[in-house]
């Protein structure tokens, strides 16, 4: 009886055997840590042998030396090494029987009968039918709830099969982005994309799949993989059950290929204390090692010594040109409609490009496709509401989020008459509609609009706007090939109107638009290798500045800079190959091409002299869309991972990136009035080369994840500015900029605890970021052409982010931040000029402002968790700057009579408490 059962299991993988006499054979071969499948393939290639085996065995790793043995000798050697038994059917046919040793007495007929019976039905879709249907005795050890995937009639085909599918929230139908689907031993897995879809190539056979995502209950599914098929998975939110995570592990830092990668999940972010009670994904990014900002409430961030314009910050794949609201206190991303964010500091895939420091990819949620749900939040500064629901149940859904400030009351109660007449507010709108046409086609459309307004003293009005939209189409050609195509538009513009004095009243405007087409294919030809390839093309259209008189009595002379156009295109291909159990390699190549297009004038300058208006010798005019200058940027990306053990791996990567569009800013932090400009014949593309490596280790199962990452980065054609540079309404930019080089290096330590009552991370980084100007002309040198620290060079920084869950309703977050003070330039000499005491400053960034330290605390209280309750509310009490430390925002010097006095300015001197209420109506 037992024997029959065993054969029954082995049976499906045995094919009719070709007979061909083959006498004595001597086999040699040397296989170091090779997959069983590869060894067999090699043996079959070289010798007249035919193996039949369960694809389960494919991924068994074998280290074997065959010094010249007969077939039987070789087989016993493999058996000895691997516990895989073999059955020789005849001289050429060998059946691997796995753990079971089989006596050779069953005849061919036995197999024939069974296969011809066709008792199995074809299963193309997800089926959770039990094997009981097939009369299999449960005592055979077959687990219940096995999902069969693929066409069972094709089960004899050797090799592997591809599974595609999506992972969704069972309650809302929302796709879960970044969920991992994997099997262990050996680890093979995939991560869901922005549509919640994944593609996974596995050996045929029985697998135990683990599906995991932050904030969701992990799920274990048994699958029987017969052939290509679909496996859709629905996960349940882990909000209610805060028990210890049952299945630990996911595709973690040990296994994934990238160095310098972090995924931020919005579910965790809500628990982190924030200023004004506004959960902010950009501020959370600042807690990661290697991510810095020039100061509290500074706009943007700096990754590994790069400028803040060198981050490709995207919302649903559309770049966002200015990412902050309200003086940098809040980001433009409404946490209610965000699914997650990925930060790539290195190991950046070839499909990303255009910025040299990092990619920060913020994903939008999809609306609940089962029922309507309304949620909102109220804090002293902002209010927001999100509505989502199905358009057609399970097929299409929408989500709309609106956020606004009502902060003017804060200004209106002030004593200061200037500020009482001032006003500062913002609002933003995010919306997304998605529609599943059929299993192979999904469409989504999303849009974003934000407005910031700041009116000073009722006569100067600053405004800026972001407007983005994208249409995406995901198409599945086959289980092995799918594509995502998109058309998008992004727009940023600002304006400043000043009407304090009728004679000098003016309107100042700036605008950048980009129109982008992207097509990206994912191809999974076989197990452990996949390809990504495609192209993208972006047309930039800029109105780099116009100043026009405001009102009839204004004497302001119109100044309108000519439009700037450019086309940035790229072809990319990348492949991820898992060469064996230990070694995986990503290689990518991106060819980017930038055409600076007319209309516009280009100037040529006297050779061997600094570029100034006075040294212009010739002017050439280019008409609209004529190519002024073309740059090619071949970009190589490489990542490799070697996994010593299941809990220890090392990785290395190299990234080369090109950037053709730059923020011109000679202020310490970028402001909303800084403008993006395109490379031209003189302002070369910025180029970054980054070498990085990392060691990754997990402890106590996978409860603790530790990593040490190091990097060395060179940046070429960095843009620095002459001291007098006026960047607004500047027609001849190159006369005000200086070509510079950057060099940065650092080490980042991170310990992370993901599960359990206490979770969070602890990080320390040592990082340096230096800049050097390249000109031979003294007027174009900073610090005499020597390396000097950049504005965001903060050698030491330390972060603790922690969350403790007391029970399912109450949790506390405590965060601490420390960093070296940013560099600053201090005066050296005071002197009197025309009766005015003035200061002489020497080397740039030679000194530092005092070190920064801050502690934040938040207590989050959830309402009760009755399942059928209509309104689910939660409170969050947070205290920003708990220790009331007056951190220096800037340092400045003032002449007070005979003495120069130094002062530091702090934004926060006190602890700032905030209460936020958040609700959800289902």
């Amino acid at each position, binding site marked *: 009886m037992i024997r029959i059962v065993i054969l029954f299991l082995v049976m499906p993988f045995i094919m009719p055997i070709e007979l061909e006499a083959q006498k004595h054979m001597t086999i040699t071969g040397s296989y170091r840590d090779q997959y069983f499948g590869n060894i067999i393939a090699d043996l079959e290639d070289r010798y007249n042998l035919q193996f039949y085996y369960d694809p389960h065995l494919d991924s068994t790793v074998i280290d074997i030396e065959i010094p010249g043995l007969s077939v039987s000798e070789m087989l016993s050697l493999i058996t000895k090494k691997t516990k895989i038994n073999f059955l020789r059917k005849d001289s050429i046919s060998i059946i691997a029987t796995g753990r079971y040793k089989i006596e050779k007495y069953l005849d061919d007929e036995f197999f024939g009968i069974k296969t011809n019976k066709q008792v199995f039905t074809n299963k193309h879709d997800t089926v959770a039918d039990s094997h009981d249907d097939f009369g299999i005795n449960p005592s055979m050890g077959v687990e219940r709830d096995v999902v069969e995937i693929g066409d069972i009639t094709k089960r004899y085909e050797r090799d592997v099969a591809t599974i595609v599918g999506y992972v969704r929230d069972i309650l809302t139908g929302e796709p879960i982005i970044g969920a991992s689907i994997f099997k262990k031993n050996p680890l093979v897995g995939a991560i869901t994309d922005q549509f919640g879809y994944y593609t996974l190539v596995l050996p045929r056979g029985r697998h135990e799949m683990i599906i995991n995502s932050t904030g969701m209950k992990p799920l274990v599914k048994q699958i029987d993989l017969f052939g290509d098929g679909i496996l859709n998975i629905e996960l349940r939110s882990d909000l209610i059950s805060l028990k210890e995570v049952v299945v630990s592990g996911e595709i973690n830092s040990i296994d994934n290929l990238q160095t310098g990668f972090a995924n931020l999940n919005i579910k965790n972010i809500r628990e982190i204390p924030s200023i004004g009670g506004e959960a902010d994904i950009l501020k959370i990014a600042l807690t990661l090692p290697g991510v810095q900002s020039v100061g509290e409430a500074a706009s943007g961030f700096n990754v590994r010594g790069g400028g803040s314009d060198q981050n490709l910050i995207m919302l649903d794949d559309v770049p966002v040109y200015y990412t902050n609201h309200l003086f940098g206190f809040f980001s433009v991303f409404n946490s209610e409609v965000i699914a997650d964010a990925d930060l790539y500091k290195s190991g950046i895939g070839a499909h990303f490009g255009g910025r040299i420091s990092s990619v920060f990819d913020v994903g939008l949620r999809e609306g609940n496709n089962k029922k309507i749900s309304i949620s909102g939040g109220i804090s002293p500064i902002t209010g927001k509401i999100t509505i989502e629901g199905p358009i057609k149940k399970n097929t299409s859904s929408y989500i709309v989020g609106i956020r606004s400030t009502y902060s003017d009351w804060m200004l209106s109660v002030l004593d200061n008459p200037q500020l009482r007449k001032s006003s500062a507010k913002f609002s933003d709108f995010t919306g997304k509609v998605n529609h599943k046409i059929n299993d192979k086609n999904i469409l989504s459309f999303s849009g974003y609009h934000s407005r910031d307004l700041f009116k000073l003293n009722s006569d100067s009005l600053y405004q800026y706007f972001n407007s983005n939209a994208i249409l995406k189409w995901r198409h599945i050609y086959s289980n092995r090939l799918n594509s995502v195509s998109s058309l998008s538009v992004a727009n940023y513009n600002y304006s400043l109107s000043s009407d304090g004095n009728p004679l000098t009243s003016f309107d100042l405007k700036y605008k950048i638009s980009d129109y982008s087409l992207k097509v990206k294919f994912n191809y999974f030809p076989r197990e452990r290798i996949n390809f990504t390839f495609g192209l993208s093309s972006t047309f930039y259209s800029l109105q780099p500045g116009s100043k026009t008189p405001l009102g009839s009595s204004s*004497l302001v002379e119109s100044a309108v800079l000519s439009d700037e156009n450019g086309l940035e295109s790229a072809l990319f291909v990348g492949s991820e190959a898992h060469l064996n159990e230990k070694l995986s390699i990503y290689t990518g190549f991106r060819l980017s091409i930038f055409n600076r297009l007319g209309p516009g004038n280009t100037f040529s300058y006297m050779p061997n002299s600094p570029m100034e208006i006075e040294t212009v010798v010739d002017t050439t005019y280019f008409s609209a869309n004529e190519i002024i200058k073309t740059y090619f940027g071949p970009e190589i990306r490489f990542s490799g991972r070697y996994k010593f053990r299941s809990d220890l791996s090392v990785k290395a990567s190299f990234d080369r990136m090109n950037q053709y569009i730059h923020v011109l800013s000679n202020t310490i932090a970028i402001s909303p009035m800084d403008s993006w400009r395109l490379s031209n014949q003189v302002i070369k593309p910025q180029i970054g080369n980054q070498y990085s490596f990392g060691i990754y280790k997990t402890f106590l199962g996978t409860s603790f994840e530790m990593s040490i990452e190091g990097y060395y980065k060179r940046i070429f054609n960095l843009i620095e500015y002459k*001291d007098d540079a006026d960047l607004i309404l500047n027609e001849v930019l190159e006369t005000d900029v200086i070509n510079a080089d950057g060099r940065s290096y650092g080490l980042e330590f991170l310990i992370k605890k993901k599960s359990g009552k206490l979770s969070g991370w602890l990080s320390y980084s040592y990082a340096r970021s230096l800049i050097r100007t390249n000109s031979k002309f003294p007027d174009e040198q900073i610090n005499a052409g020597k390396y000097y620290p950049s504005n965001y060079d903060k050698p030491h920084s330390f972060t603790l982010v922690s969350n403790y869950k007391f029970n399912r309703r109450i949790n506390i977050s405590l965060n601490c931040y420390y960093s070296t003070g940013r560099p600053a330039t201090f005066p050296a000499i005071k002197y009197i000029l025309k009766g005015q005491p003035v200061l002489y400053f020497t080397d740039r960034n030679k000194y530092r402002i005092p070190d920064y330290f801050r502690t934040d605390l938040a207590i989050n209280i959830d309402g009760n968790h009755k399942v059928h309750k209509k309104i689910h509310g939660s409170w969050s009490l947070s205290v920003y700057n708990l220790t009331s430390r007056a951190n220096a925002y800037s340092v*400045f010097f003032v002449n007070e009579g005979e003495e120069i006095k130094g002062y530091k300015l702090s934004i926060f001197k006190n602890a700032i408490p905030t209460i936020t209420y958040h609700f959800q109506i289902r």
Partner: protein
Amino acid sequence: MRLSKPYVMVMFAFFGLCGCIESFNPKIPESDNSLLVVDGTITDQPGPYIVTISKGISLNEKNTPVSGAQVSIEEDGGIIELLQETREGVYQTASIQGLAGKRYRLSIYYQEQNYQSSWETIRPSSEIDSVYFKKAIKGTTDINNDVIGLQFYLDSHGTNEDSRYYRFELEETWKIGVSWPISYDYIGNDLIANTTKNLNYVCWKSRQIAGINITSTTGLKQNILSNHKIHFATGLEDRFTEKYSLLIKQFGISEKEYLLWEKLNRTSGGLVGLFEKQPASVKSNISNISDPSRPVLGYFSASGLTTKRIYVDPDQVPAELSKQYKCPLDSVLKSNDIGAYSRNIFNKLREGKLFYDFVYLDIGGDPSGVVLSTLICSDCVENGGSAQKPEFWHD
């Protein structure tokens, strides 16, 4: 176009914060070598023109004057005049007269080093049409502390020949009186005599207004300044109690000099936020020819000059600004012990108090005591004024 100050102020406002500016004194090592500081001017108005030379050493030490340098100003294609050192480090011209449209250059020879400025052309300064004022309230960085005062405005119109870059030097002068003019000296026993003290009851205070004051009309169709805020004078002191005068010197400067002042203003002007440019070293138009690597501080400016003086009478300003501040008086009242009363008065007089008047508690009766003033309340020279009537002053 800079955002910083309003931004920073609104940020304060937002979080209801105050007192966030604290003293911070980093250790800044003294530079190894001192730098030459040259401050020279030539205008299209009659001289003498002054050039001062000193050495800058550190932040908190006063610059030391440089004596014994050979200083000359040269007109392009014209004369070279050697300046005379009139005071330590102060050099003065005798006869040279700057002319609009001409170029001038400053040369210095000191300690075997040659220093020279670039050629600077004098461009005429535009005509000042009028200067006028309005009452205004001004906020300070302390959001709870607004000040009241007069906002002065300037209108000027210039031709296209005139410079479009302006620098202003302002000088304010105001007449002050005293709270308690003294008529008598106290002799004792309630007896008084006409005072023999020579006190000043009318004085003038004069002050150079600190701060870099520049503007430009580039970007405008015409070279016109209108409603240009030139100065805000607070009423906190005794400015508007008698009569006030503001002298405006308007220099038509070069673009290069304008940019220099703009930069100096940025880096020496206080409050620096993140939306500010980095402070940077300022390049002079004077260089060390013998050793170009050694920077020179200061500037030799050639500019047109126009001036305008206005007067403000007390009846032209709101009462709250012209209100006289009265010093408190000390008093000694009679007690039964007349001897102690007398001793008390004389003790106070010896301390420097001044007899002002008797106090009468009963009408028509004997004095019940005396009230005493102090020198500062009765002599305006003591209060920082000068008894010398300025030459220009007319009441």
